[in-house]
């Protein structure tokens, strides 16, 4: 019990003294996860909307697949990306393995199904409400996509946040493709795993507190935005 109290005290000291190592790890974590979420949103939002609006053979199977992929095991994604980026792999020439770029790629694969699947559901609901009116105004299905994405923006924020939660909390994929190299690819989750195994609980705890605080802050802000938007836009 004393060890725990001591560790928490030390963790708080690291946080309040703005320990450079800790800040570096937090900074890289944010850079990797935010980049991955941004890329996944760039692809996933229009992809989800297109699946919602267009009818094509195999659509239902694609919807089932997309929903299933939301639960992709991070270690499997890490392994596949590792094989792709390793020197003998098809993308080995890019030299991305054990770089933040590889970590971003792995997290994009993890986050993309979440963003696309939640976007598909939200857009389908909105389309059933808007379709007749938009067609009446002369909108094509393709032209309706940006309209629906904009009008569903506050709902879509939930999907993007779910993706950010997934990216910032996962450890398996970034550990495999990043290698947890100090000052290069060490992020909060891999550092927590390493420091815990080394018995350095204060740093692990400090990082844990930052991770938890970030998650609460991001979701709290999103909830405020959602409430405000509901009041304003209806």
């Amino acid at each position, binding site marked *: 019990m004393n060890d725990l109290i001591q560790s928490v005290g030390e963790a708080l000291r690291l946080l309040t003294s703005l320990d450079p190592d800790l800040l570096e790890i937090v900074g890289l974590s944010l850079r990797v996860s935010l980049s991955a979420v941004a890329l996944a949103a760039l692809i996933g939002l229009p992809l989800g909307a297109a699946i919602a609006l267009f009818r094509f053979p195999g659509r239902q199977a694609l919807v089932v697949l997309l929903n299933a992929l939301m639960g992709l095991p991070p270690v499997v994604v890490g392994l596949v990306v590792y094989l792709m980026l390793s020197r003998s792999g098809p993308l080995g020439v890019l030299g991305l393995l054990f770089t933040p770029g590889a970590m971003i790629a792995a997290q994009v694969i993890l986050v993309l199904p979440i963003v696309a699947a939640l976007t598909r559901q939200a857009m389908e609901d909105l389309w059933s409400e808007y379709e007749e009116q938009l067609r009446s*105004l002369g909108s094509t299905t393709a032209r309706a996509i940006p309209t629906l994405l904009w009008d569903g923006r506050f709902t879509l924020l939930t999907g993007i946040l779910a993706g950010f939660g997934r990216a910032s909390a996962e450890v398996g994929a970034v550990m495999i493709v990043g290698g947890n190299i100090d000052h290069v690819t060490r992020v909060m989750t891999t550092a927590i795993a390493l420091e815990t195994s080394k018995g350095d609980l204060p740093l692990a705890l400090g990082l844990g507190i930052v991770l938890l605080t970030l998650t609460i802050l991001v979701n709290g802000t999103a909830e405020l935005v959602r409430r405000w938007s509901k009041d304003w836009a209806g």
Partner: protein
Amino acid sequence: MSPQHPASPTARPATRDGAYEASILPLEMREVVYEVAGARLIDGLSLRIEQGPRTLILGPNGAGKSLLLRLAHGLIRPTRGEVLWRNRKITGAGRGPRRQAMVFQKPVLLRRSVQANLDHALALHRVDGDQRRARRDEALEATGLAGRARQAARSLSGGEQQRLALARAWALKPQVLFLDEPTSALDPASTRAVEEIVEALHGAGTKIVMTTHDLGQARRLADEVLFINRGRLVEQGPADRFFEQPQSREAQAYLSGELLW
């Protein structure tokens, strides 16, 4: 509020370069059948709607009034038969000529401001820049919503939302405006405001084709009446004649308040 449309009462809508367009009317339906899951909802309906008089479509619930508007507007395709605009056939749902606009019973407004709703409609019609601002402001002024331009559209009252739907149609300067029971959920004051806007649009040369359940409204607005029942056109003619001397037994029963089935 006294709507003033800038176009002269007899003018056809002008294109962006100021030239006057040829009318897309008459609208013709030839032996149109519309079926859903084997049920025949429109049953071999033929009609012709000309430029000019305000046409009101009357009939009991389930007669097919709303379907008729949707077929004419190209939102749904007939199972059989033809819908023609100035002898040109509509080939697919949503691909009809867009010199028409439609106002629905329950307006569907974007989750944006009042003026953004108009901007979106104008953008779809490729109206940009100063022209877009001018047409937006004119439509807001005409429908009494100028003071609410920056308000969220969905925070408006029911009557104001329907006026915004009319403003959206106004801004597009349609040749034909379909209205599907636009006042069925409104109080008398809002109904009057909507009727004034419809009158102003008619005065500016827009062909009005409207469905209603309200016989008082039909008497106020109609120049011509189409009476339909069970998906068939029963009677079409001048409003005065329809209300004073309905030709069919079904129309007589409808006007006297008997239940039709």
